[in-house]
């Protein structure tokens, strides 16, 4: 265990935000989960007791009839906001006093940094470069992420869960989002920061980042494994496999969705449903492609003269 190396990575000033983000995220997930479960308990209660449902104020927090339903912003909200501002200021000041913003050598185009890393919030995309061609990782994916986020309100037809934490009423939506945010975004950043060392090689935490390390790794294309040699063959094969993934995966997801999310399925239009399916399957495709690469050393699945997937 190379503690020195570990410490060096953890204490790099630009990595501190990521270190800070992990407990923060854990805390907020806990906070959300707590409220969601409280709400879910309440919902279950109210569902079984319609009479109570008619009179109940429908929040997990205590309430008495005499209490105001609305409170004045001044002072009740503003005092919280000011307090938050003060605390953020304190954190920021202490952080700024104790930790210096990094400043390295003057830019030198002739001396490549190894590893050369993008800002931490883009490390997820940089990590994707390992698995995909730059145009997918660098252009298509960010676009998909943005569009994916933007279409959420239009494909989430579930009217429940607006304005309160819940899990039971929105299992699919929250599950998918957690998958996208935690697995595909945050953990990729984590890998890019702490796991990827010189030469963008995989180093377990505590392993020495040896600049001389050489790894024997042959990544083969899927068509080659199947002995397909002609370009046309490869193109067709890849298209079949990728299309197959979408078709078969789509079938599975559909089967699942139709059974467990029957109401949503009913509510959704064909367009909404297909957009949802496309994004969902693409998201699923990412870890599958990663695992294919990391475990089976498969480089590309679909090879064409113009692009590879």
């Amino acid at each position, binding site marked *: 265990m190379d503690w020195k190396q570990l410490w060096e990575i*953890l*204490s790099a*000033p630009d990595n*501190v935000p990521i270190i800070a983000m992990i407990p923060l995220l854990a805390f907020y997930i806990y906070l959300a989960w707590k409220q969601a479960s409280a709400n879910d308990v309440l919902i279950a209660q109210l569902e079984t007791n319609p009479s109570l449902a008619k009179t109940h104020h429908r929040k997990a927090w205590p309430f008495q009839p005499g209490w105001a339903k609305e409170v004045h912003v001044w002072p009740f909200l503003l005092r919280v906001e000011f307090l938050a501002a003060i605390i953020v200021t304190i954190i920021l000041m*202490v952080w700024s006093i*104790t*930790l*210096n913003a990094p400043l390295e050598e003057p830019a030198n185009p002739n001396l490549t940094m190894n590893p050369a890393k993008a800002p931490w919030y883009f490390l997820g995309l940089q990590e994707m470069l390992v698995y995909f061609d730059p145009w997918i990782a660098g252009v298509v994916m960010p676009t998909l992420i943005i569009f994916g986020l933007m279409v959420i309100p239009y494909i989430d037809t579930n009217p429940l869960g607006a304005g309160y934490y819940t899990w039971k009423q929105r299992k699919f939506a929250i599950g998918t989002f957690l998958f996208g945010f935690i697995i595909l975004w945050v953990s990729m950043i984590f890998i890019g920061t702490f796991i990827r060392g010189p030469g963008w090689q995989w180093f377990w935490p505590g392993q020495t980042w040896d600049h001389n390390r050489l790894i024997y790794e042959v990544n083969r294309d899927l068509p080659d494994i199947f002995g397909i040699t002609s370009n046309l063959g490869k193109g067709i094969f890849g298209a079949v496999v990728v299309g197959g993934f979408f078709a078969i995966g789509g079938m599975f997801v559909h089967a699942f969705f139709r059974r467990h999310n029957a109401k949503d399925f009913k509510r959704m239009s064909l367009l909404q449903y297909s957009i949802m399916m496309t994004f969902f399957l693409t998201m699923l495709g990412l870890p599958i492609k990663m695992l294919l690469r990391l475990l089976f050393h498969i480089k590309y699945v679909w090879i064409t003269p113009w692009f590879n997937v």
Partner: protein
Amino acid sequence: MKTKTSMAVWSLAALLGLVLLAGCGKKETEEQPAAAPAAAATPIDPATAASVSGTVKLDGEAPKAAKIDMSQDPACKGTNTAENVVASGGHLANVFVYVKEGLGNRTFDVPKEAITLDQSGCKYHPHVMGVVANQTIKIVNSDPTTHNIHPTPKDNREWNESQPPKAAALEKTFAREEIMLPVKCNQHPWMRMFVNVTKSPFFAVTGPDGKYEIKGLPPGEYTIAFVQEKLGEQDVKVTLAAKDAKTIDATFKP
């Protein structure tokens, strides 16, 4: 490096700690006594002064003194023999005897009187002499020819001055200790003598009978050195009690 220290204190708790710590600057706590202060020169009590004397012998045949060809300068008329080992009857002359160690940090006054170095018969007289550092050496030329006096020291300043016949005496000093400092004359290559510059006045040069005496030494432990220009140096350790008069002989081998 900075980041590491920063990381360690990066917490609100450390804030208070740091404010408290702010008072304590870094200070080198290591204490190390300096070198012992120089012992003050204690005056020598003449009542307890001891002395050392003896004879320096040459064990073996004295080499035959080489003849010097002084023909190049008709003005030179002297004994035509080299002086590097002068011995008669086994007694070795021109050996410089001095107290090499044991006087500690004592300081001594520079004798006021000058020591004369004479050039006559195209030879230096004496051949070996001792002076205290900064003591004046008076150099006279008794020859009807021009000499030049050219000391070639190791640790002192070199100089080379000419002295025509009947010229005024030169007065020179040497500031630093140096044993067997050769002095020559470029015009008469055979002319050669040695000045010994010491810090203390405790030295002597053996005469033709090989005898020497050093007087007025305070009691103590000393190293007495016998130095001969060709035959090298011999050191003898001696302990002198008050009013001691010890005899130390030395024998050189050719």
